[in-house]
């Protein structure tokens, strides 16, 4: 009975989303190939960011709302390569290289702050995100071009310092996605998609009954796959084991000599650095950087997607990430059109998905806290049952 309840409780969120999507997809009237194309693009764009959330969850630090710190570090890296005019894959890698030390420093700071606020890591990291956003804005808006050398006039505001609101990332736009140009076509008209945007594409496979063609961001997917391998490997290391131990019981881990605070900081640093790379991958797909807004929603959308994938505050797997990306973005794509077709107002679908993002986080948090309090109760009860031999 309890097992069934747990099964339902653990998978209720994805199930609801599958049902919503099942209704909304026909309403939207999108073709399968369009949806698959969009989903593939979004998987490539967002999965890395979401994967960066896994490690703090493993270490029992909850959802790392502080991942926006990493996103900001990545953006600073991108701003520099834009200024220097480094393009293509070297540009992306260089942006990562520049972003890494910034992300590490921010991560260490975040880790120390969170160690001071044990038990309320989430709200603290959330506010920390806002705080660092202030510092980031000060840096980018006032110090860049004044103290920090930025010379490219295309980047700077007309007043001579501060970075413009929108920065074009033409130089690295889609470089990773199109590194290995790959498409899937239907059996019909295979030839006409052989070259897309002047680049020769490699046809991966032909699927009958598929209309049109689907371009696959193969290199991005490979990077994400490598990252998944990294996480699987990381779980097997001593460090991963220590994090799992800390996640389950800080006091036991501490008494067995595991450096709890240090390990927690490492978890946050890793998450922040990965979020930095994730943001760079995300922006290379988008092609433009909204200097002051791009990172705003990153944390919220990534967390919502992870939760929709069936993860909870204390447990998340790689499968949750991909289930989450697919379900969340499926709704993202179809909700406005479905809303328009249903009620005649696209705005409603727009608001609906915002509501769903926040609502799902709220519900997950509530369920987590509720379950935790109930488990505490149950643990107490079991203590009674075991005492003595009655």
């Amino acid at each position: 009975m309890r097992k069934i309840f747990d099964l339902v409780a653990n998978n209720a969120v994805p199930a609801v989303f599958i049902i919503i999507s099942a209704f909304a997809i026909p309403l939207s009237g999108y073709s399968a190939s369009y949806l698959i194309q969009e989903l593939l693009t979004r998987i490539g764009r967002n999965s890395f960011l979401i994967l960066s959330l896994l490690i703090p969850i493993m270490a029992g630090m909850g959802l790392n709302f502080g991942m926006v710190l990493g996103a900001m570090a990545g953006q600073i890296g991108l701003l520099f390569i834009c200024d220097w005019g480094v393009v293509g894959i070297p540009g992306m890698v260089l942006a990562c290289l520049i972003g890494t030390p910034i992300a590490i420093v921010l991560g260490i700071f975040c880790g120390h702050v969170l160690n001071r606020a044990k038990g309320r890591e989430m709200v603290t990291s959330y506010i920390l995100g806002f705080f660092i956003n202030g510092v980031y804005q000060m840096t980018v808006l006032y110090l860049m071009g004044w103290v920090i050398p930025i010379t490219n006039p295309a980047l700077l505001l007309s007043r001579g310092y501060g970075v413009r609101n929108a920065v074009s990332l033409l130089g690295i736009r889609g470089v990773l996605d199109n590194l290995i140009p790959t498409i899937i076509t239907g059996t019909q008209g295979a030839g006409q998609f052989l070259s897309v945007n002047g680049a020769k594409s490699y046809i991966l496979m032909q699927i009958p009954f598929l209309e049109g063609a689907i371009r696959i961001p193969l290199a991005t997917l490979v990077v994400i796959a490598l990252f998944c391998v990294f996480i699987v490997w990381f779980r097997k290391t001593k460090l991963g084991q220590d994090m799992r131990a800390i996640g389950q019981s800080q006091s036991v881990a501490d008494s067995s000599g595991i450096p709890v605070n240090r390990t927690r900081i490492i978890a946050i640093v890793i998450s922040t650095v990965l979020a930095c790379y994730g943001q760079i991958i995300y922006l290379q797909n988008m092609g433009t950087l909204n200097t002051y807004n791009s990172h705003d929603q990153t944390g919220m959308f990534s967390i919502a997607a992870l939760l929709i994938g069936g993860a909870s505050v204390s447990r998340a797997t790689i499968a949750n990430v991909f289930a989450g990306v697919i379900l969340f973005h499926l709704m993202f794509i179809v909700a406005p059109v479905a809303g328009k077709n249903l009620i005649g107002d696209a705005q409603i679908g727009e608001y609906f998905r915002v509501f769903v993002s926040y609502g799902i986080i709220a519900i997950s948090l509530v369920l987590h806290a509720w379950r935790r309090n109930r488990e505490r109760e149950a643990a107490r009860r079991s203590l009674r049952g075991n005492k003595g031999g009655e």
Partner: protein
Amino acid sequence: MSEGNTPLLRLDHIGKEFYGNRVLSDISFDINAGEIIGLVGENGAGKSTLLNILFGMPVISSTGGHEGKIQIDGRNVNFTSPNQALAHGIGMVHQEFSLIPGFTAAENILLNREVLNGSSMSYLFSDRVSTLNRTAMNERARAAINTLGVNISPYMSVSEMPVGYKQFIEIAREIDRKNTRLLFLDEPTAVLAESEAEILIAALKKLARSGIAIVFISHRLSEVKELCHRILVLRDGRLITDRPADELTTRQIASLMVGRQSSSVDLEKHEIPEEIPAEPETADSVLASPKKKKKIRPALKVEHLWVDMPGETVRDVSFEVKKGEIFGIGGLAGHGKLGIPNGIMGLYPAGGTVRLFGRKLTLNKPRAALGRKMAFVSEDRRGVGLLLDEPLDWNITFTAMQTQGRFLLGIPYIFQVRNEHAMRREARKFIDSLSIKCTGPGQLAGELSGGNQQKVCLAKAFVLRPNILLICEPTRGIDIGAKSLVLDTLKEYNRENGTTIIITSSELEELRSVCNRVAIVDEGKIAGILPASSPAEDFGMLMMGQTRHDEEGEESA
């Protein structure tokens, strides 16, 4: 048992004072390899302090270290952290489980000592990026478990284990440490069923034969006697006895543990108003025959009470307290004596019947208990007893304000504002009468010393003008001067107002000196109720879980 002349561990005149409060003095004994030592003593006899010293716990060094010398293999050592003790081969199994529930047995046994595969990355970062060698880990865990002679799969998750298994995993963890030569076990059998305890004892004997010395701390004297070669009895911070186990009977051990000069007991007590009834009156007969009520009517009558208080479970308790009596509840920590008053007051889920002057009390509702003019002083002064961040007058008058509507101005149920003037006046009255050392009623309760905080708690209870006063651990954590003052206050209050007082305390002597009768709780049940003047060893036997049956068995054997 000893091999050669140098003992494994030698304690030489160990002593310890906490803020002028002596808890250990002049403890000297040796432990040889392969020897099993039973360490017994009441709560507060100094066992945990002794362990803390041996393990170099920060509590000791931060409070000025200890006296005397500790030698391992004839060399002086002075540990400043538990890790140093571990490095010298001293292992410890705590009373509370220190296991990670979601991990397997092997993962727990090798926690933070995992077998690692080598990795080239480990130089760049640290060993922590090497992967775990699970096959080797499981093998090692299996070996450690096998040493104990039990059969537990290393793949089994701890959360799915019965409690007894967890205890074995804890011990296996210490055994796995390659250099472990001396193992301290703090009440390892407390959570075990009898059959499990037998397996454990067999395992420990096996372990000792392999050359590991074991110090076994337990309140189950029959087990201690069965397992140990030598028994050390600790009382009031002194080593009373160090004798081979076969020279002592459990009764002797018990009396050594609690035995004290009877002169220390203040036998001058005021008379109980009426005689305690020879036979417990059933509630029905009290209600059914109103004529009888003049003769005997217990102030408090508890029947088949169970309380679900974590760590202090009460299973089935029945007793009666006469009006005007001071009734003591004693027993070892963790056996449920604290659960009784907490349960009666409704602080923890409870069941059974509690009658107050013949009328049934609604359980599980603190408000109901308070409404019946019962007052309660919690053992958890800082957690439950006080508002640390609020001034004294709040602390003293709050309960009376909320339950009796005093210290308020305005119309009841509609609009009532607190009467700060009255609150302060009341607080001042108690500050004077109990001589609470503070700057005034406006001082925050958290800033007072332990003894004065306890007085505030008493004042809080007195303000309620209770018919029955339940007090838990009135003297825990306060200095000697304050101790006698608190006890005297209680006695005086009882004498002046005729209030029935129920005191729960771990200190038997204290109970015997204040109370008329003392009930001893053992494993969630009343082991017996004795007049305070009974010999100490009778209390000791009740406390140690030595029922008449055990005793007879021993004598016949």
